Structure formats: C-alpha cells, structure tokens
C-alpha cells in the first residue's frame, strides 16, 4: 500500500507540485499523463527524494516519511523501497550490464557476491539479455540499455517501481522491446507508477490513469473513463492534441 498526502514542491517561486494526494494499491498499475512541465517527473522524483519535497507525507509499506523533516535514514529507506527507471537509462558506465544490476544488491542490500550475481543473471534472463551480461553500457543499443535499466530496478524487489518516460529517449525501433518488458513486469503483480506519452500502451496496461495539469491531479479514472469519456476541458484538449 502506497499513500501520498499533501505532497508539495516549489522550485524558487514556481509551485510545481500542489498538494498531491494519491493512494496506490498493491499490484496496481497507475499511469500519469499530462502536458509538458506539469510536474509528472517531479512527482516521481519527489517520491524518491531525487528532488526534496517541501511538505507532505509519503507512506510506502511500513515506512511513513514526513517530507518536511525527513532524516537521512528515512530517505534511504524510501529509496530502498522504490526502483526508478530513468528516461535516459542512467546506467553506470564503469560497470557491465550484470554489475549494474548487482550494484544495489551488493552495496545496499549487502547480499553475498555469488548470490547477487545469481540474481542478476536471473533478471538478465528475464530482460532477454543473458548474453550481454559482460557488456558495458557503451556497447549496448538504446533498447538494451533501457532493459538493463529496468532490470536494475526489478532486482531491488521494490514495493513500487517508478518509470519516468522510459521510452522517450529511444529510437522508434527499440520502443517495442522496452514496452514488452514492462508488460512482463506488470504480469508479476508489481506495483507500478508510470509516466508515459505512449497512449496506446497506457490504455492497455493501466488499472488507473491520472491526468496532471499545473502540479495537480486534475482527473483520474480507468483508461476507458479517461480516453473515451474525458470530463475536464484541459484533458479533452490534451487528448485531442496527442492523438493528432
């Protein structure tokens, strides 16, 4: 169970997240859509304290953190309960595919090396990259790098996986394989919070869709409700624009 209340973030004078309230059930797949600059990335980054929220409460599983006075240990606690997939993959350039996935298992979860390696290999097999275990990121295609990025987050066995536009930086030819992998992750009942501009994928994978505008969740509902019967005029305009 994930629960967010009153999450607020201001950059300088600009409010970017405005009192966000959001509950996510275990195994639920929530997709966030919305125009550029409305705070979708910031919401995900605040959950992971890559950006520090100004106020609000975040509960993930057994850990509740008051954002305004979060201590170091609590921040690490939140990060250990979440896996983050970045738009630009953000793989460790000095580590092989397998080492990228092992890194958190060894340094954060303190698993013995052999055990971490075995788990990393299992994850690599799931991502279809078993034969790339010893390749460095520079030698992988964009699609392969992002699959390793997803594998790195999968290996954490996190209570919540966050995806920030995981296919936006990819050449079109690699988008399919990354979306396929995300579908497989979804099949494992993994709780997922996904920001994407892939509307077809959103409709297909989401249990619930959130529409964000100017730092607020303006409308939410099932894919059918959002795509087939949008209420808010801003959502209607947004959908008209993205469906071209």
């Amino acid at each position, binding site marked *: 169970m994930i629960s967010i209340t009153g999450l607020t973030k201001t950059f300088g004078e600009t409010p970017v997240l405005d009192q966000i309230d959001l509950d996510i059930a275990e195994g639920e797949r929530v997709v966030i859509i919305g125009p550029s600059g409305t705070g979708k990335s910031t919401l995900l980054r605040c959950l992971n304290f890559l950006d520090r929220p100004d106020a609000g409460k975040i509960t993930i599983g057994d850990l509740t953190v008051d954002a305004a006075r979060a201590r170091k240990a609590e921040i690490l606690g939140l990060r250990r309960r*979440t896996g983050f997939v970045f738009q630009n993959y953000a793989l460790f350039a000095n580590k092989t595919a397998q080492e990228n996935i092992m890194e*958190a298992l060894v340094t954060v979860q303190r698993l013995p090396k052999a055990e971490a390696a075995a788990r990393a290999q299992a994850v690599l097999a799931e991502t279809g990259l078993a034969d790339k275990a010893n390749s460095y990121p520079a030698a992988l295609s964009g699609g392969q790098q992002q699959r390793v990025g997803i594998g790195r987050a999968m290996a954490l066995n996190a209570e919540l996986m966050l995806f920030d536009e995981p296919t936006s930086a990819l050449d079109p030819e690699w988008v399919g394989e990354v979306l396929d992998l995300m579908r497989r992750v979804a099949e494992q009942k993994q709780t997922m919070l996904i920001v994407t501009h892939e509307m077809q994928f959103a409709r297909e994978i989401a249990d619930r869709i959130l529409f964000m505008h100017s730092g607020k969740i303006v409308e939410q509902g099932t894919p059918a409700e959002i795509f087939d019967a949008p209420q808010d005029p801003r959502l209607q305009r947004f959908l008209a624009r993205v469906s071209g």
Partner: protein
Amino acid sequence: MQALDFEYMLGLVPVILGYVPLTLGMAAAGMVCALVLAALLAVERVIRVPVLDWLVVLFISFFRGTPLLVQLFLFYYGLPQVVSFLTRIDGVTAAILGLTLHFAAYMAESIRAAIIGVDRSQWEAAQSIGMTQWQLMLRIILPQAARVAAPTLVNYFIDMLKGTSLAFTLGVTEMMGAAQKEAAGSFRYFEAFLVVAVIYWVMVEALSQGQKWLETYLNKAFVR
C-alpha cells in the same frame, strides 16, 4: 674551453644512479599521499561542506599561488621556529610533505573537473538505488573520474619527480646533492650536473611512454 671529461661522467653515473631509489621513493610517496589528499579535496569541492569548503578553497589557492621552493622553506625552516615539535621532522619527510601539499592542490582541481564531467544522471541512479554518498563516490564516480584525470595526473607525477630535486635545498643528499658533493672535489660541475640532467631526462621519457600506453588503455576501457 675545456673538453668534456666523458670518463669522469661515466664513472659518476653509477654513483648518481645510487640515489635514484631515493628520488623515486620521495616522488612515489608524495604521489600516493597527494592523490589521497587531492581526491578528498576534490570531493569536498563538489559536495561543498559549509565552512570546510571555504578552508579548502583557501588551501588550494595558497598552494597553487606560491612557489614550491618558498613553501618548502616556509614550512621546513620557518614554521619550526613557531611550532616547536616540527623541529624533529627530517629533510626527506619535509620534502615529501611539501610535495604532497603542493601537488594535491593542483591535482584536486583536475580531479574535481573530472568528477563534474561524470554524467549527472549516474549520481541520481546511484542515489535512487539507495547508495550513500560515500558508496556512490567510491564505486561509481571516482573510478570514472580517475580515468579521465589519469593522463593529467601522470603529468603532475612527472613534475613531482623533478620537484624532488628541491629536497637538496632542505639538506637532503639526493641526486642533486650527491652531484654537488662529487663536483666539489673534482671541480667538474658541468659534467656532474649534466649526468643528473640526463638521468632525470631518461626517467621522464620513460614515464611519458608509460603515459601514452595508459591513454590507449583507458580509451579502450568500458567498451566491450
């Protein structure tokens, strides 16, 4: 004009070579200490700890802004008059210490630049999986920064190797000191110092070759 006395020079070579281990030892010890100190200074400059940052900036500015010889004299001959326990430091230790502080200031700047050069998103990725600042520095950032900074650091090592000759001014009998003593007996100063120069030259050339090899190796790293 007097002809060069080659026989004298050849005889001097093994004598001066006997001091090469001391020279290399001072340079190596200075380099190891300077690398550690420089890495710490560089990391601080990137993280910017309040107050400490100000001190680090001051340190780097001072040791880059004044000549090594002046620093050595200041700390070896000057400071012990003020701080009494320092009188027990011998010339070799003082030289290593001086080289360490001086070159750490320079190396900190190139390591800092290399750290900043590592893609910011890798910091975030490391944070996102729950790594501490220390872990992400030691395991992700510094190994990559080291590769970028390595060729420059070798340059500083070469400078440091040559800088060890200043230990002579602290009363250390190293290559230069030995040549000076030999020449004082024979009055063949030119030959004696020429031998020293050639030995330095050969060592630096060897290091430059090593540096080229290192660069080729580093360019190939992380691609497979």
